[in-house]
């Protein structure tokens, strides 16, 4: 690449000038300062959003923990009538739901939002307003789901909501709708965070941080965010099917109408098992980041850890049926999943052994974080070993749904996730607050929690062996489970006491306590380059990185950063700026301007939350009003904050580097965000495709006779029109590139009716043949496969009109046309979707010999 800049041969920095330094610092401060007073809620910077995210997640953790204590109180003695059956069923459902969806996954996002940009030496993540939006969605949805218990309508179907218990309104009430819509809403925020983090790791690395130099934490974040992208969407597809059955009676899970309850289990666990690793890997990432600091040397087997993270991520998608070993599937099918469940032990073992090997060749400084890491190892290894046991089908036939599993899952999650997280809290607390935690209290909380945990959960294995099934609200003295349960209850309260000590330690006001010294632990990663007291801008100037542990291996780096000798030391134009780099070698591509504080994201999240909540109560009119409000706020936010044409095409970034101020297509983070979001969207669609084939394999007469198939001719006409609409969108991109603004707008707006006619033809093909989604699973599936592109087309129309307006008002021009490029990318995915649907609805029945 001829025009490549050799970062290792940059001109020397300008000599230090104190006045200039002061002026630059003032300008940076003005740009990055957060709004004062109550307006702070409009803040979008990662350090604020991350902190709020973290505290909110812990609030939900505390809530779910209190539910757990209530569960333990009820089970402490046999024949207890402290809580009613109805309340108890709500308690355990909400405990599992809140721990999984409102704590375990969000806490990963929270921690990543706080430390990822700092580890990358970046000022913020590439889409700060998206982070803010995700956070507000999370808190609204979380309060909605949790609050339901105070009105006695909390979900009570167990956290995996098996159909038909959850699908038939005769067996489950409003709680299930609250669960479905509340969590779908939170899943949206998780996917938003995943997009943000993937783009963050790929495009926001500091100049020079090539793939081989990227810190392990970033690898884990990349892997986990990628997993979210492939794991959450199938559940969203499942939620959609389930809510359609509950609200409108569509026949997906009702066996009397050709549905199948097992479909839900597949869709749920395709999400649910990777979820376990989505929870586990980010916490292991924290240990992988802390351990080198305390060992005082780089991680042994850095690349082996990358291998195991990627390997675990893949294998974790081949485990889902091990939650369904007792559903009577053919033994050979079960065995494949048993094999993958065993195989995943190999990369997990490699990870653990790399940690131990690092300790072996160094002298690890004792500290509270390492104490928690050690406890994590002891607990997690135990949970992993029982995991190897339950992955064997015959063993699982005994252990499944018993307290053995309850013990196993808490060993893996608390050992694999909670203890490493607590280690991380102790490690990064000084980074976030510039104050030190009380180490004595830290040790107390560790020993209380470690002891309490084992007292609570070790006997539970035996309770399971004694035959106690999970989710029972009472048992009899003659069952012989009483003593074990009493011990578990005592342990649970000791554990809770330990957490209370930790919470008190963290929340203790330390206003007058002295600030900690900079880089307190003598770490090698970039986040510790932050000044004490910290500044809202993150780093004073964005350095060139050419080692894995820059603070250890790049001498004088911190001083150079402080003196503003590196890139973007200034904010002359009064804009928040980041450097976007390329994926492989982190070569600087352009200077990205990101949004500052805004109430628009709050408004968008509020309206979206309100529409989900109102949909729960089937108040369709106001749901639509708030839905429109969401669209309005979002468009306003996009219009005023994204793809703005810069005042100058390029700017000087320091050290002889001049960078463009605008990028479009695959150089811009926005394009990648669309690409990644649509990959997730395709995964959700694949969930529907899976459902279609699942019915076909599971039900002998799923495909009806030829006269009940949607008409081939109309499907073909619809396909032609939909592809035509796609072609017009692509044409609009080409014509705008050639400067034909009018033609481009005409093509964009012209694509609207063409697409509408196309989807209309598809609807007609099913309607004319009398397909009734409430009558048969095939009909329901066909209508769902028409509804899906119809909803996407609706979004496409909004986007087309938006881009046409951008062209009209000169915000999208023949040169600066990022908006249109992103729209074209969206429509590529839509085209792929409609072609697949055509294959399913028109070609597959023909292939199977039932077509006309």
């Amino acid at each position, binding site marked *: 690449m001829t025009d490549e800049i050799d970062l290792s041969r940059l001109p020397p920095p300008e000599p230090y000038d104190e006045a200039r330094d002061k002026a630059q610092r003032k300008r940076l401060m003005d740009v990055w300062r957060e709004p004062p007073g109550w307006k702070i809620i409009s803040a979008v910077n990662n350090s604020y959003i991350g902190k709020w995210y973290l505290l909110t997640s812990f609030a939900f953790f505390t809530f779910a923990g209190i539910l757990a204590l209530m569960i333990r109180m009820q089970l*402490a*003695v*046999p024949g*207890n009538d*402290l809580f009613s*059956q*109805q309340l108890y*069923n709500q308690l355990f459902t909400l405990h599992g739901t809140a721990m999984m969806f409102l704590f375990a996954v969000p806490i990963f996002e929270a921690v990543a939002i706080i430390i990822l940009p700092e580890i990358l030496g970046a000022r913020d993540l590439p889409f700060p307003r998206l982070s803010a939006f995700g956070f507000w969605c999370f808190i609204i949805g979380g309060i909605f789901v949790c609050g339901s218990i105070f009105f006695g309508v909390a979900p009570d*179907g167990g956290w995996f909501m098996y159909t*038909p*218990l959850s699908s*038939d309104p005769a*067996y489950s009430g409003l709680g299930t709708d609250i669960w479905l819509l509340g969590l779908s809403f939170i899943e949206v925020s998780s996917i938003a965070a995943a997009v943000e983090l993937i783009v963050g790791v790929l495009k926001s690395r500091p100049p020079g941080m090539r793939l081989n130099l990227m810190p392990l934490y970033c690898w884990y974040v990349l892997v986990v965010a990628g997993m979210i992208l492939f794991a959450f969407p199938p559940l969203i597809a499942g939620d959609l099917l389930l809510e359609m059955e509950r609200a409108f009676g569509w026949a997906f899970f009702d066996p009397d109408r050709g549905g199948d*309850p097992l479909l839900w289990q597949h869709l749920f666990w395709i999400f649910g098992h990777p979820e376990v690793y989505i929870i586990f890997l980010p916490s292991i990432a924290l240990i992988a980041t802390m351990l080198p600091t305390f060992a005082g040397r780089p991680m*042994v087997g850095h690349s*082996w850890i990358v291998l195991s993270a990627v390997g675990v991520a893949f294998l974790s998608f081949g485990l889902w049926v091990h939650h369904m070993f*007792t559903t*009577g599937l053919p*033994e050979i099918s079960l*065995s494949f999943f*048993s*094999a993958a469940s*065993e*195989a995943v032990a190999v990369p997990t*073992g490699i*990870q*653990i*052994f*790399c940690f*131990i*090997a*690092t*300790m*072996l*060749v160094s*002298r*690890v400084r004792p500290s509270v974080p390492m104490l928690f890491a*050690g406890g994590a190892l002891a607990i997690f*290894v*135990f949970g992993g*070993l029982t995991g*190897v*046991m339950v992955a*064997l089908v*015959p063993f699982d036939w*005994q252990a*499944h*749904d018993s307290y053995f599993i309850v013990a196993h899952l808490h060993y893996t999650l608390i050992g694999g996730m909670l203890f490493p997280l607590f280690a991380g809290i102790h490690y990064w607390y000084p980074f976030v607050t510039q104050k030190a935690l009380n180490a004595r209290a830290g040790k107390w909380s560790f020993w209380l929690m470690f002891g309490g945990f084992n007292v609570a959960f070790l006997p539970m294995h035996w309770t399971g*062996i*004694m*035959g106690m*099934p999970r989710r*029972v*609200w*009472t048992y009899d*003295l003659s*069952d*012989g489970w*009483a*003593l074990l349960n009493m011990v578990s209850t005592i342990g649970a309260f000791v554990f809770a006491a330990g957490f209370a000590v930790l919470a008190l330690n963290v929340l203790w006001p330390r206003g007058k306590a002295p600030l900690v010294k900079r880089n307190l632990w003598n770490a090698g990663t970039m986040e510790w380059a932050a000044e004490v007291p910290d500044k809202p801008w993150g780093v004073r100037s964005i350095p060139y990185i050419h080692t894995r542990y820059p603070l250890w291996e790049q001498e004088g780096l911190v001083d150079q950063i402080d003196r503003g000798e590196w890139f973007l030391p200034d904010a002359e134009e009064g804009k928040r700026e980041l450097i976007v780099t390329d994926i492989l070698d982190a070569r600087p591509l352009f200077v990205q301007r990101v949004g500052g504080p805004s109430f628009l994201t709050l408004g968008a999240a509020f309206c979206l939350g309100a529409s989900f909540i109102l949909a729960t109560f089937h108040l369709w009119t106001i749901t639509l009003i708030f839905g429109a409000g969401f669209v309005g706020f979002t468009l306003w936010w996009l219009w005023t904050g994204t793809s703005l044409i810069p005042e100058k095409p390029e700017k000087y970034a320091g050290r002889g580097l001049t960078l463009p101020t605008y990028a479009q297509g695959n150089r811009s983070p926005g394009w990648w965000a669309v690409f990644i979001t649509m990959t997730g969207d395709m995964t959700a669609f694949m969930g529907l495709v899976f459902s279609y084939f699942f019915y076909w394999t599971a039900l002998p007469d799923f495909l009806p006779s030829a006269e009940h198939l949607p008409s081939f001719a109309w499907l073909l006409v619809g396909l032609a029109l939909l592809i035509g609409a796609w072609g017009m969108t692509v044409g609009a991109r080409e014509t705008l590139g050639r400067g034909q603004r009018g033609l481009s707008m005409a093509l964009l707006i012209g694509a609207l009716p063409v697409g509408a006619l196309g989807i209309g033809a598809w609807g007609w093909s099913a309607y004319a043949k009398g397909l009734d989604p409430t009558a048969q699973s095939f009909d329901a599936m066909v209508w769902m496969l028409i509804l899906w592109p119809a909803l996407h087309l609706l979004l496409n129309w909004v986007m087309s009109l938006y881009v046409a307006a951008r062209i009209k008002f000169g915000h999208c021009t023949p040169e600066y046309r990022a908006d249109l490029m992103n729209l074209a990318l969206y429509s590529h995915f839509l085209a792929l979707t409609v072609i697949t649907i055509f294959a399913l609805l028109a070609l597959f029945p023909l292939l199977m010999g039932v077509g006309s």
Partner: protein
Amino acid sequence: MRRSIFLIIPALLAGCEGRHNWLASAGAEAQRVEDLFWVLLVGAAVIWGIVIGAAVYAHRRQVDPSLETQARRFILWGGAVFPTVVVGALLVWGLVILRDITSDEGDLTVRVDGERWWWRVIYETPEGDVVTANEIRLPVDRTALFRLTADDVIHSFWVPALGGKMDMIPGRETTLALTPIETGNWGGLCAEYCGGAHALMRFDAIVMEQSAFDSWLEAEAQPAEIAAGDPGFEIFQEEGCGACHTIRGTEAQGPVGPDLTHLASRDKLGAGIYDMTPENMARWITDTHAMKPDIDMPPYPDLQGERLDRLVAFLMSLD
């Protein structure tokens, strides 16, 4: 809390009879898993000890650069090769056991249908189906093939002492083979959460000698013997019990609730949860939802005094 802790403690120690214990060795299938379990337990303990021991050792010792080669071997052999070999071997062993304990044939076939929250049990005999509920009797050393279905939501059929569990799924039929090898009264449970009174969905699995089993099944196949004009039966019909319950040999042919033909021959009342006593029966009829919340059977609080006594006496005579 209803009972005082002090009353419980002695009972606790006495109460460990282990009716639901996987390790009770009461069934051939459970025994295979038990063999597997002890090996897994010892193996897991040893591996856990070695890994944690290695971590503690690594933490305590001084830095020694010459250890780098050892650490490298440690990762390769301990972290990669050893787990691969161990879990590979376990996988093969587990699959072989799985192949051995599954069977599509049995010496007798029992259909069990999961209902909210009780069990409809149907023995298939050459003379026709024998219907009962909430209690399963099996001959020792014979393989029983269970054909499992569910009517409303998913349940799971589990007799831990005899073998593994199998889900009962609406719209499907699953099968489970169990071979009891020890006589006794073993506990059965619903293992899959089925809403409401999931905790109170139990049954007794009574393993008997073949001859005793044969005579029991023969008795069970007979219609009920009711004296003509039994006042209890008249109350039974007047209160409409026959709309839901069947007593074979009478006009009570309700298909909704458990079959009551030989009700009093069962050990337990209310799907394996209360002893079959007149007191419990009377309370069950008048205060049903206090004994088992949420169930479909309505309580009959107005049924008191002599009418209740007669009805209870009638029901207790159905053996």
